[in-house]
């Protein structure tokens, strides 16, 4: 079973978000980068579980990023991926990431492709769908369960207000959400092994951007919190109605 997992980097979840002077990009100073949580915890670990259960196959990871992202790639290799590919450009939108990965996929063969549910920085949750569209493959977003038996994948996915069980034969793209697998902390052996696993650098194609991030602003600070006496919930209800217009 050969599985491709798409890995993005993301600022550590405790990062205080700041922007550069032009306000058009994150100020990377002092930011610790991590593997985007749903890519690592759910998509990658599930791919490893399936490979282990099958007793054969390979888990490959791909990221669109620059050489500074190799540390993130090593982390994913330490968790257990077998080999890595990096398309050598700074990702500027989900659409260009998808177009680059799709272009690279020509000539590659995988049973299926997993992405995370969304990156925690831009939160587009669109890359998987865009990639599926480029490759003309079925796309199953937000899967919580995945089982593969003789080439048929059975999945359960979150459909907002419920779940749906679906079956797909042949290659597909799915995005992984909570429940699919449990985070694996890499052990010493994994970390050592990751040092010698191959990272293949691929040069990007020239593809036009369709959207552009102009600038970023931080939300206005909240005013002071109004404290309400715990014995006086009528007062809270009154304020929610007349002041906040929330009732």
């Amino acid at each position, binding site marked *: 079973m050969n599985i491709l997992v798409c890995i993005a980097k993301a600022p550590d979840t*405790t990062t205080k978000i700041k922007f550069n002077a032009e306000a058009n990009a994150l100020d990377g100073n002092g930011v610790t980068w991590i593997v985007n949580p749903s890519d690592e915890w759910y998509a990658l670990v599930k791919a490893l579980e399936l490979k282990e259960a099958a007793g054969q196959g390979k888990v490959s990871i791909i990221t669109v990023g620059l050489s500074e992202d190799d540390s993130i790639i090593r982390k994913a290799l330490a968790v257990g991926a077998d080999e890595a590919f990096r398309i050598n450009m700074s990702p500027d939108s989900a*659409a260009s990431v998808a177009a680059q990965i799709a272009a690279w996929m020509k000539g590659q063969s995988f049973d299926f492709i997993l992405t995370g549910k969304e990156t925690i920085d831009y939160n587009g949750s669109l890359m998987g769908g865009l990639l599926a569209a480029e490759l003309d493959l079925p796309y199953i977003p937000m899967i919580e369960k995945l089982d593969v038996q003789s080439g048929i994948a059975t999945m359960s996915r*979150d459909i907002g207000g419920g779940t749906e069980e*679906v079956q797909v034969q042949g290659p597909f793209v799915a995005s992984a959400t*909570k429940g699919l697998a449990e985070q694996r902390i890499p052990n010493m052996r994994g970390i050592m092994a990751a040092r010698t696993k191959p990272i293949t650098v691929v040069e990007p194609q020239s593809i036009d951007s*369709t959207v552009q991030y102009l600038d970023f602003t931080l939300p206005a600070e909240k*005013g002071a919190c109004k404290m*309400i006496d715990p014995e006086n*919930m009528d007062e809270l209800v009154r304020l*929610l109605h007349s002041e906040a217009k929330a009732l």
Partner: protein
Amino acid sequence: MNVLVYIDLQLGKPRKNAAELLTYASKMADGGTVSALVLGPCSEDLTQLGDFGAQKVLHANAPELASFDGLTHGKLLAEAVQFSQSDVAIVAFDHSGRAVAPVAAAKLKAGLVAGAAGLPLGNSFPVKAFSGKALAKVKVLTSVWVVALTPNSIPSEKTAGTAALESWTPSSIPVSKIKVLATHKNASDIPLPEAERVVSGGRGLKGPENWGLVEDLAKELGAATACSRPVSDIGWRPHHEHVGQTGITIRPNLYIAAGISGAIQHLAGVNSSKTIVVINTDAEAPFFKAADYGVVGDAFEVLPKLTQAIKKFKAEQA
């Protein structure tokens, strides 16, 4: 400009968010035509979509469209954009929209705005970024646009218009490779991302047996229920209730958090809520800094009192 709205069906009826999407489309169209696209058999009178600004409804009611497939629906949305000569396609930034929008955008070679949080200024849209910690401006560089609108971004407005219903036959219906085996509905009726009010509980509630307190208040408010990550990790509550940076992001009108400390990862998923009420025994809990109204007190006492106060308020209003 001409705008086409993708209307998602749930159990054969347009989802409640159709009103918001059509209102948004009408404002964007600014005199242009607003059309709605409905795919699959539908048990409701679709001319009612005119109430929120649709002038035309394209309805493809082939039975094979009843089960949802992002690839099929996305391709048909792209075809409908061309058929209706629309400049913009609007979908909800929800579970279905996230699967439909990218396909339509890829087929149309259109710029895709993910998670628009309001109306555009020219061709640049406000969108949420960094898990709600920031707002970005995104410019679309193509002539046709696909816009996925974050739920609860603008209030829906009724209009006096009527919609003309047109049955529409797409050139071909791509055969879905996805076979739907079963669909299960969650116990609560209101999907969390669409809920206007949310009551949420954290580890401070001590155990799943105490969730009645959260549910009673939610029921009285017509709210959905949510929880912090550890609560769903230990299995007190289902995964789909987990809100935050690694859970789902919500922006209801009212968010009530009981027994939640307000860690930065939790706040990331809820801090766009219009009004936040925090109930916590610890006056130093970080959540109070992000709250509009705070109650320092024991959730086990405060929640029932608040539920009673809401009951009383509703009785007075009636």
